[in-house]
């Protein structure tokens, strides 16, 4: 197997007594769109800054094409970066901002001119070359920042929450642009965000950060369908967490018992028999039926609320131990249910995950 394009090895960063990141390790393939997803303070930005060179790690190594990046000064690393804040140089025109990294590299004038034209076309801002950054909208400024970061064909593009200052509509528009730019240029992207929807929309793979560590790495589908921890399950998508006790355990599947004695078979689990845990099921993977039609199968619940959402129905149901659970179903499947009526809650065994 060939060496991975970018290797992050056992990174650790401490400030005085505070541990910002702890043994973060990750391999990234060439051309991959990798997103660091996590709440603020989870260490995702710190990891990115260490790759950029703004901070040095307390321990660990970063290798690009097998060579250490840490010994290279940030201005020699030849990495592109787009920041959270607008960082266009205010005294330079859009064209000169894009030309900046090329001028610093002392490239010939003709090459600079051609490259600036090409980059501005890439971000669909060809007519804006002579404007000043102050005359552009926030979205346009970030597109110029992307053009500037890609002007010198860096092998790696770092993006630190570049869309967080933009409104929702603009954000979605630029997300589409980013996918296109990634496909057209083939550049490897490390992208930091706290927005799970943005991460799912953009990334080939996502690394979920929590409290300075990577909780899980995988494609969006893997993280959603097979989360390995309660944190990942709760951070990506909506989820219900039900208290259970693991009774029998075999080949990664458990028999889980609820507080009222009802039991389900076949939930994915890594817990030992006899331990207390939480069973996670997504709202859209649950079904409810009127109690009369169910004849004793499933968990007995009471319908507390139902909301019509056009493409689906949202139900709030209450368990015998007074916990409220969210269920989402197609509108036609919700027939025969009414608020206050007894019902039965079911789901396919493989959709249940037991966490500690």
């Amino acid at each position, binding site marked *: 197997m060939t060496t991975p394009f970018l290797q992050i090895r056992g990174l650790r960063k401490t400030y005085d007594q505070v541990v910002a990141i702890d043994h973060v390790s990750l391999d990234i393939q060439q051309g991959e769109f990798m997103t660091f997803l996590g709440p603020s303070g989870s260490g995702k930005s710190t990891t990115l800054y260490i790759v*950029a*060179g*703004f901070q040095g790690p307390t321990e660990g190594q970063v290798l690009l094409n097998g060579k250490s990046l840490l010994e290279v000064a*940030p*201005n*020699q*690393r*030849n*990495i*592109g*970066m787009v*920041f959270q*804040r607008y*960082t266009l*140089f*205010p*005294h*330079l025109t859009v064209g000169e901002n894009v030309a*900046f*990294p090329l001028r*610093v*590299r002392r490239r010939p004038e003709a090459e600079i001119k051609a490259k600036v034209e090409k980059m501005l076309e890439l971000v669909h801002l060809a007519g804006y070359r002579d404007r000043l950054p102050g005359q552009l909208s926030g979205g346009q400024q970030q597109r110029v*920042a992307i053009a*500037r*970061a890609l002007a*010198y064909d860096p092998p790696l593009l*770092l993006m630190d929450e570049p869309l967080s200052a933009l409104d929702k509509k603009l954000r979605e528009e630029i997300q589409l642009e980013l996918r296109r730019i990634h496909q057209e240029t083939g550049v490897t992207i490390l992208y930091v965000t706290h927005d799970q929807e943005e991460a799912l929309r953009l990334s080939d793979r996502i690394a979920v950060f929590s409290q300075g560590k990577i909780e899980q790495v995988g494609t969006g589908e893997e993280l959603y369908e097979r989360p390995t921890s309660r944190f990942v399950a709760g951070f990506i998508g909506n989820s219900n967490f039900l208290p259970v006790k693991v009774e029998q355990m075999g080949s990664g599947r458990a028999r889980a018992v609820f507080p009222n004695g009802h039991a389900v078979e076949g939930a994915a689990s890594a817990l030992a028999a006899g331990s207390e845990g939480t069973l996670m099921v997504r709202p859209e993977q649950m079904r409810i039926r009127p109690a009369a039609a169910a004849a004793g199968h499933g968990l007995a619940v009471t319908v507390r609320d139902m909301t019509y959402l056009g493409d689906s129905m949202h139900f709030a149901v209450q368990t015998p131990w007074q916990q409220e659970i969210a269920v989402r179903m197609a509108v036609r499947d919700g027939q025969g249910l009414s608020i206050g009526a007894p019902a039965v809650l079911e789901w396919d065994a493989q959709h249940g995950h037991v966490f500690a």
Partner: protein
Amino acid sequence: MLLDFDRLGAWRWGLIGVGTVVMLFLLLPIVFIAALSFGDSQWLVFPPPGWTLQWYQQLLTDPVWIDSLLTSAKVAVIVTVLSVALGLLASLGLARSTFFGKSALQAFFLTPMVLPVVVLAVALYAFFLKLGLTGTLTGFVIGHLIIALPFSIITIGNSLQSFDPALEDAAMICGAGPIEVKWRVTLPAIRLGLFAAAVFSFLISWDEVVLSIFMASPTLQTLPVLIWSTLRQDLTPVIAAASTLLVALTIVLMLLVSLLKRGTRS
């Protein structure tokens, strides 16, 4: 707002009255001096019986006045360059780093602003006498630099405050080395602050009189010193002409600053 001018009613006329009186009190002497410098009365009669440029002619042909004017200009230019250069380094250091005693150092840099100039002048005079610096250009420059530097540090420091250091990070990741980052990004971004610091430093040196009196020798004196010493001997309209020149340059520079500020805002 608590006090809205439009809602003051009759009070506003009182306010306008007080404002006008203060304005006249401040500006009339300057207008008066400027008018006298063009009047043809030897005895500074006001209003002048006729108009003439002869006092300016006398001023610009007398080698003593010319020398002092050149000395003033020379000192002011050197002080301006040094004050901006040192002010830039000091405010960069203060803005970008955290170290023990930083706020103490900041306060120390600003002490010349609050220290009575006379005290500073006497101290410097005694010190420079020992070093043989009184009556030299170096003596003037050091003295003026001490009182100009705080203004430079404040002005440049303020423009650094509104400058986002992330711009430097962006320039660095684009491939620019530390010096190139400052030269291509930081300095252009704070150029207005640098210009304002230069103008303030120039003006502080240009019309400084207390320190200069202590530093001056019969052969080397600045324009304000010469005005002051001439005034003690006789009352000639040449003084009015010299003062008017002093004020005129000040006004021109201040106008330049506000024009530039308006230009970058639009």
